[in-house]
């Protein structure tokens, strides 16, 4: 039977064609990885500044404080504090997590894991990356505008984000940057969806796809549907700021007719709640695969896991209202949104139980990708369970806008995704760069990160439960919060520990790429998905001959195997008794 074979593109030879304007999905994946790591550093530095302010209000920020804030002697000023938490949230969500999990691993893994030579539209893929660069430059440029960058929070609610709340060009540039990044992400989504539907290797049905691909595919679908909603919202916000329209103005500001600031919240969260899943679905997929690979047994209930992820994807589109319980929403609506939110627990519990089922009686190999995957199981469990209190109207009314919310979403969106991202980097490093990262230092990195991370995010939930509000420059001017100073210091020390742990990763990563001489083998982890059937690093054409898939991605620990291996490649017939 004849099947479509993408042409093998000529090998790039110049620096420009090889590293800058490459059409190769692997190079674009690496470009997104470097981009994401850069912004992770910028956003992380901002987080440390925020934490410093909360632990030591009025004390100059160490080392670089005087250079950054000379007019206050190194103390972070209140308006800058608002910019810092706004830009930290924006950068981490849109410019660090998204490029690493979706941009880097989406681009790198999809063609390799489905047996394709490249994405369906390589030119669109390249444009997607460079549009993201333009957006990043605009966002960083906004830091240097006269009145500073955006300071209305990562959600940019009007009226904080209209000209009334944020004069100057910083907020306008923020909106423009997000719009452009949205265009970039939707370009990627078109590519991912089309590639997965049309370029799967012969024999690969949807349930033969690795769960990583399921996660990335569902993410792309959510991106394609909901990013334009945010696009429409920020476009109208730009019009309000630049052309004087009145969409989100209210009261005296809108002198005739009336705008509606709360409408932006609706638009934002119609996009924003699916965005949570846009970020977490790739990590879920990756972890679902890695748990099976390193338990040396098939993924428990793989089809149910894929279908649960699909169900969660669908339900995620119906629950956004739980972010707005405190906006005087009708009680009928709050209860509807609460019920819908609770129903997400059902598919979540199914696939979480499947993770545990995969681990049960497995011959677990505690490699670095496995440790990070187990970390995801722990932190996502904690983050998911604490979400129940925020999805319930009665408890949310108390907890809303406290640090409990900050702790919760950092557990789900930051910790889970960060650990999932590290699991992916450690796992695919040999296929990406042809080098293994040091396992010893990877494990040191994991344990210190876990200690720091839990100190930060669990601490946040505790102070939040005690009533500490988010976004306050110096919460301790209020007497009832003063007894939370020691806990805040503990959170800050934990944050610095977590930050320091990332230096271990950076040194390990840079050493492996630029200085290590020992090459990785083709299949160092001994797994059977398609990318491990080709040399490390993957050649520019991926597959010389398009592979034919004959079994699933998690054929490990089959007692009937007589090959001396405990796994099968997807290109091999399933060994039966």
């Amino acid at each position, binding site marked *: *039977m*004849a*099947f*479509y*074979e993408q042409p093998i593109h000529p090998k790039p030879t110049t620096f420009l064609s090889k590293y800058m304007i490459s059409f190769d999905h692997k190079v674009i994946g690496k470009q997104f990885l470097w981009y994401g790591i850069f912004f992770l550093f910028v956003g992380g530095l901002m987080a440390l500044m925020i934490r410093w302010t909360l632990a030591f209000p009025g004390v100059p920020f160490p080392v670089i404080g005087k250079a950054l804030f000379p007019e206050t002697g190194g103390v972070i000023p209140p308006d800058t504090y608002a910019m810092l938490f706004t830009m930290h949230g924006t950068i981490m969500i849109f410019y660090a997590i998204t490029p690493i999990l979706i941009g880097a691993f989406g681009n790198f893994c999809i063609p390799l894991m489905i047996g394709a030579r490249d994405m*369906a*539209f390589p030119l669109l893929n390249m444009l997607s990356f460079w549009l993201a660069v333009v957006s990043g430059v605009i966002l960083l440029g906004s830091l240097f505008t006269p009145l500073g960058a955006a300071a209305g929070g990562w959600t940019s609610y009007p009226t904080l984000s209209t000209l009334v709340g944020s004069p100057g060009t910083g907020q306008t540039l923020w909106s423009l940057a997000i719009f452009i990044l949205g265009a970039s992400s*939707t370009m990627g*989504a*078109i590519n991912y*969806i*089309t590639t997965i*539907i*049309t*370029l799967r290797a012969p024999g690969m049905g949807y349930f033969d796809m690795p769960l990583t691909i399921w996660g990335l595919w569902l993410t792309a679908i959510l991106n*394609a*549907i*909901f*990013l*334009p*909603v945010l*696009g*429409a*919202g920020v*476009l*109208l916000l730009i*019009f309000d700021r630049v*052309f*004087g*329209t*009145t*969409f989100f103005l209210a009261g005296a500001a*809108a002198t*005739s*007719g*009336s*705008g*509606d600031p709360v*409408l932006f919240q*609706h*638009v934002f969260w*119609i996009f924003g709640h699916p965005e949570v899943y846009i970020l977490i679905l790739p990590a879920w997929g990756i972890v679902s695969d890695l748990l099976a690979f390193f338990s040396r047994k098939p993924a428990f209930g793989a089809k149910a896991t894929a279908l649960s992820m699909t169900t969660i994807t669908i339900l995620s589109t119906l629950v956004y209202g739980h972010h707005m319980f405190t906006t005087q929403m009708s009680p009928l609506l709050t209860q509807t949104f609460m019920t819908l939110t609770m129903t997400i627990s059902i598919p979540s519990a199914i696939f979480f139980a499947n993770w545990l089922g995969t681990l049960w009686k497995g011959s677990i190999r505690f490699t670095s990708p496995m440790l990070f995957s187990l970390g995801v199981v722990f932190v996502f469990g904690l983050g998911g369970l604490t979400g129940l209190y925020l999805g319930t109207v009665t408890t949310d009314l108390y907890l809303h806008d406290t640090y409990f919310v900050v702790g919760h979403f950092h557990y789900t969106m930051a910790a889970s995704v960060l650990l999932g991202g590290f699991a992916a980097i450690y796992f695919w490093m040999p296929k990406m760069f042809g080098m293994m990262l040091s396992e010893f230092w990877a494990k040191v990195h994991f344990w210190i990160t876990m200690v720091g991370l839990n100190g930060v995010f669990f601490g946040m939930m505790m102070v939040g439960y005690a009533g500490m509000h988010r976004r306050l420059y110096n919460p301790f001017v209020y007497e009832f919060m003063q007894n939370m100073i020691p806990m805040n210091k503990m959170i800050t020390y934990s944050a610095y520990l977590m930050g320091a742990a990332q230096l271990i990763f950076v040194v390990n990563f840079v050493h492996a790429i630029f200085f290590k001489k020992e090459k990785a083998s083709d299949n160092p982890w001994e797994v059977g998905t398609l990318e491990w059937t080709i040399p490390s690093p993957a050649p520019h054409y991926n597959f010389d001959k398009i592979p034919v898939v004959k079994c699933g991605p998690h054929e490990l620990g089959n007692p009937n195997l007589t090959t001396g291996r405990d796994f099968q490649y997807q290109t091999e017939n399933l060994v039966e008794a």
Partner: protein
Amino acid sequence: MRTQAEVNSQYMLQANSIAMVVVLIMFGMLFATLFLGYAVYRLTAQVWPPSGMTALPLLIPAVSTILIGLSSFFLWNFETQYKVGAKQRLPLFTSIFFGLAFIASQFVLWSTLKSQGLFAGSNIFTSIIYAFTWIHVGHMVMAVIGLFYLLPLIADKAELKPNRVINVAKFWHFLGIVWLLMFFTIFVI
């Protein structure tokens, strides 16, 4: 058994069609969000149109509707003939002409609104009119570039690429439908 060339051609058709469906869903969501916002403003307003507003000009939007309708009709005509191998130049040129005329009519509309003292910041209704038409025209400009992208295909020796024509036409007709919705919901009712 199909040849490799047939398989490749079938693949390209499938991939491009899927991508185009995704693109239309994306743009559909963008405009749906705008219409949703409009519905909220209109349904929650105590007085509509906002007090102090004179009647909106109906003639120019009606002319715009005719222009975009004619453009869509001629593009459909071109597409139908192209799919059976006939490279008819006139329908494509006519479609481009009416498309450009539609964009010009939008400039006339904005100018007329301004002459009536209706500016983007006058009230929420004028904000909606200007913003929606700006966004729509922005997309029309992209779509016109798409029509120009079809021009090389009508050269005598050019290879037949019906897929490209079908996809550009889908986007063009989509924008026509969006305008029609805008015309009725903003200017007529």
